[in-house]
Each structure stands twice: as C-alpha cells, then as structure tokens.
C-alpha cells in the first residue's frame, strides 16, 4: 500500500526524519505514535506530498509520488487543525471539495450521522472547534478511497461523535481499507488500531501489534508500555 525507503527530512538544522523505512500493507488500521516532535506529522505529510523529502523514496499503491498529484485521488486525509476559509458556508465547502475531487453522494449520510444539518448554511468562521472537526470528518470520509490518513481525529469531539467516528473507522476497515492514524489518546489507539508504528527521534523504533509491544516492554498494559519506551530512551 505505502512503501517508504530511507526517508530523510531536515527543517533547517533540525533533522526530523533520519532514514525511515516503512511498509504498510493493504488492509487494517495502523497507528503512528511517538512523542512530540518525533516526526509523526512530517512522515504523514511526506506521504501526502506536502513535505518534500531531502532523500528517500515514497510510493503509494505502487506509484512513486514524486512530482505527481494524481495519486492523492486515492487518499482521504483528515488534517490536524481544521481551519477553513471563514467566509465560506459549510454547504459551499462540501460542494467545493466535491467539485475538486469528483462527485459523491456519501456526504448526505455523513451529515445526517454527525447532525450537521442545522449548520449547513452557517459560515465556517462562526463554527465551534468541535463542529469544525465534524465537518472535517465529513469531508474526509465522503470519498471512497483505499487509503485513509487521520491526523488527530478525536480533537474536540463530544463522546457521541467519538463513538460514531470509531464506528466509521471500523466500517471502513471492514471494507478492506488501509487507515493510518496519529493520536495522543492512548485508549483510542488501543481500541481501534491493529498495528502500531512507533517513531522515536526520526526513526521507526517499533512496528507490530499492541500485543507485541506489551511483550517487548514486558508491561501489562498499552499505556505503560508506551511510557516505558519513553522513559528508557530519555533516561
């Protein structure tokens, strides 16, 4: 699905990714974890082509992404901070994204699901953070793409919406899609993900199932396992 070889990225003097090699197979939910500044978002943005790597190769669905934009037709991306043009109405934004990516009818179902109907004619600038995130989710899930990338999807969501999001993720997984998630909410990660990719100081520190991680760190639960990695490496 996604194959990354020897990926290097430097921002000024700050070497963020130091030779990442990663293969993500088709199907399943992958959580990308790591402490702040470890390079999670950089990795995801590299896959999306928003960050141009200094070295290394990325291919998505067998296609090298360098100098190409069409492969993004196959990716749904949920950005971390959902800040939209404030003068547009929700309805117009949805229409616009449909206009840009091609038509879909899934949006109505999702609007219904997240109870966004009353907000359709409001300007995006006047929405609360949570509502914006819901709009964000609608925009992401309304297309039927084999790869879904979610950057901190839970931000600002109320419990009901969170449950609906989880359902949505599971459903997509059931449809055989590949889903990449970053999150700080460990319980969420533990609940949804099949496999963990742990990034530390610009390299893949661990890749495997949660069970493997627990075994490796000999910790009884997931949160402690993560914590132990961090304390070990910073001590």
């Amino acid at each position, binding site marked *: 699905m996604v194959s990354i070889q020897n990926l290097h990225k430097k*921002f000024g003097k700050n070497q963020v990714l130091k030779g990442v090699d990663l293969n993500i197979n088709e199907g399943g939910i992958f959580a990308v974890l790591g402490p702040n500044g470890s390079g999670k978002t950089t990795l995801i*943005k590299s896959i999306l082509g928003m960050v141009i790597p200094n070295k290394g190769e990325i291919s998505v669905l067998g296609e090298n992404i360098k100098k190409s934009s069409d492969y993004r037709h196959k990716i749904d991306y949920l950005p971390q901070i959902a800040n939209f043009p404030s003068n547009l109405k929700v309805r117009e934004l949805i229409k616009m994204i449909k206009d840009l990516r091609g038509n879909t009818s899934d949006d109505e179902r999702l609007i219904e699901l997240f109870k966004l109907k009353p907000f359709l004619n409001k300007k995006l600038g006047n929405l609360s953070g949570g509502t914006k995130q819901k709009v964000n989710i609608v925009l992401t899930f309304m297309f039927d793409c084999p790869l879904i990338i979610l950057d901190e999807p839970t931000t600002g969501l109320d419990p009901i919406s969170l449950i609906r999001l989880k359902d949505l993720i599971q459903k997509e997984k059931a449809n055989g899609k590949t889903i990449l998630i970053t999150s700080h909410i460990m319980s969420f990660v533990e609940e949804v993900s099949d496999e963990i990719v742990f990034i530390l100081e610009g390299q893949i520190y661990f890749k495997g199932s949660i069970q493997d991680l627990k075994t490796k760190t000999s910790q009884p639960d997931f949160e402690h396992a993560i914590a132990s990695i961090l304390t070990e490496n910073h001590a």
Partner: protein
Amino acid sequence: MLKILKYSFFDLIRSRWSYVYFAFYLLLGIVLLFLNNDLSKAVITLMNVIIVLVPLIGTIFGVMYYYNSKEFTELLLAQPLKRSSIFLGQYLGVALSLSMSLILGLGIPFIFYGLFESSAIWDFSLLLVTGVFLTLIFTALAFNIALSNENKIKGFGYAILLWLFLAIIYDGIFLMTLVMFEDYPLDKLSLVGTMLNPIDLSRTLILLKLDISALLGYTGAIFKQFFGTNFGLIVSFAMLTIWVVLPVLRIVFKSRKKDF
C-alpha cells in the same frame, strides 16, 4: 487552477476587506470629483494616489490572504491538485478581486459623473490598466514574500519594507545617483532605473500621458525616442508584463519546493 481561482475569488469578494477596499475607492472617487469639480483634474490627482496606494494595498492584502488561508491551503494540498494550480489560483483570486474593487470602486463614481462623454476617458482607462498591472505585480511579490517567510510578523515587515523601498526610497537613491553623476550622459541610466521599479514604470506611463510637453524638453536622443514615439508605451507595457511574469514564475517554482 480555475476552480481554485473561482473559490478564492468568491471567498474574497465576500470578505469584509474587499468591501473596505471597494468602499475606500468609491469614497476616494467621489471625494476627488466633489472637491475638484472637474473630471480631468480628478483623474490627475487619482493617478498620483493610485501608483502609491495600489502597491501598498496589493502587498498587504496579498500577504494577509496568504497567511490567513494557510490551513485552507493545507486542506487543498491534500487534495489531488497540482501545487502550482493551488497557488496560482489563490494568487489570481486575490489579484482579480482587488482589481475588481479598484475598477468598480473608481469606475462607478466616474461613470455617474459623465466619464463617457469626457475626453478624460483614455486617461482614466490608462489609470485603471496601470492599477490592475500594479495589483498583479504587487500581489505576486507579496505571495513571494509570504512563501519565503513562515513567520507572519516577518512577512508583513518585509512586505511593508518592499513597498516603502519601491515607492519612496528607490526614487531617493535614484535621484541622488542622477545628481551625483550629472556630468555623464544619463539618459540610458535613467530609463533603465525606471524599468527596474514597477512603480516608476507605471509613473512613466502616466507621465507619457500627462507631462509629454515637459518630457520632450530634454535633449537626450534615447529619451526622445522613448517619449516621442509609441516606443515608450510599448516598452513600458512589455516591462510591466515581465514584472508580472517573473514573480509569478517564482511562486510556481518556490511552491514546488516548499514544505507545509
């Protein structure tokens, strides 16, 4: 690109700032006509104002739009769109909405005042064409500045500095140079100096229209060829076009390499 242009444009023409800009020009047009009571004189005053103000507004607005729509840009970047079309679309959206505010804001009062029956219509058209060129140039320069500076404050600072430099400081240095080297033949130098600054270039276009009598008083042969024939007009417009194309190319180039 056209789609991005469309959305940026509609986003902008609904924004508060477009109205402020539009209202400003409307007011300027009305006040000038009211104070001067004379269309030709109002056009002349307006020319003096336009060549300084349009660049200022273009730079500030361009930088502001870029920084404010950063997240939106990131949303677009994740879509299957070419980077160049995203940025060119946004750039044209800003530049065109600014140009529209300019044309409508000034056009409406002048048309009501009887522009079409007046001999000043060509001067006025030249004024608007120059205004549009300046908007295109300075919005492009603003995008360049913004693309190269992540820091908003720095970006704004550079934008203002750029304007200050091209609108005032450049001419000061230019004047000093000319006065210092007055013993040498200067007509080539002075024309080249003019070409290198889009504000001076637009000013030259206006001079060609308003001050041709004075310009022909100067002896230099190159000057004479430049101002005495259509040569000057053609060269000025060609240079203005280059001034639009170069920064736009840099937007394309820079955006291709940039990380978000």
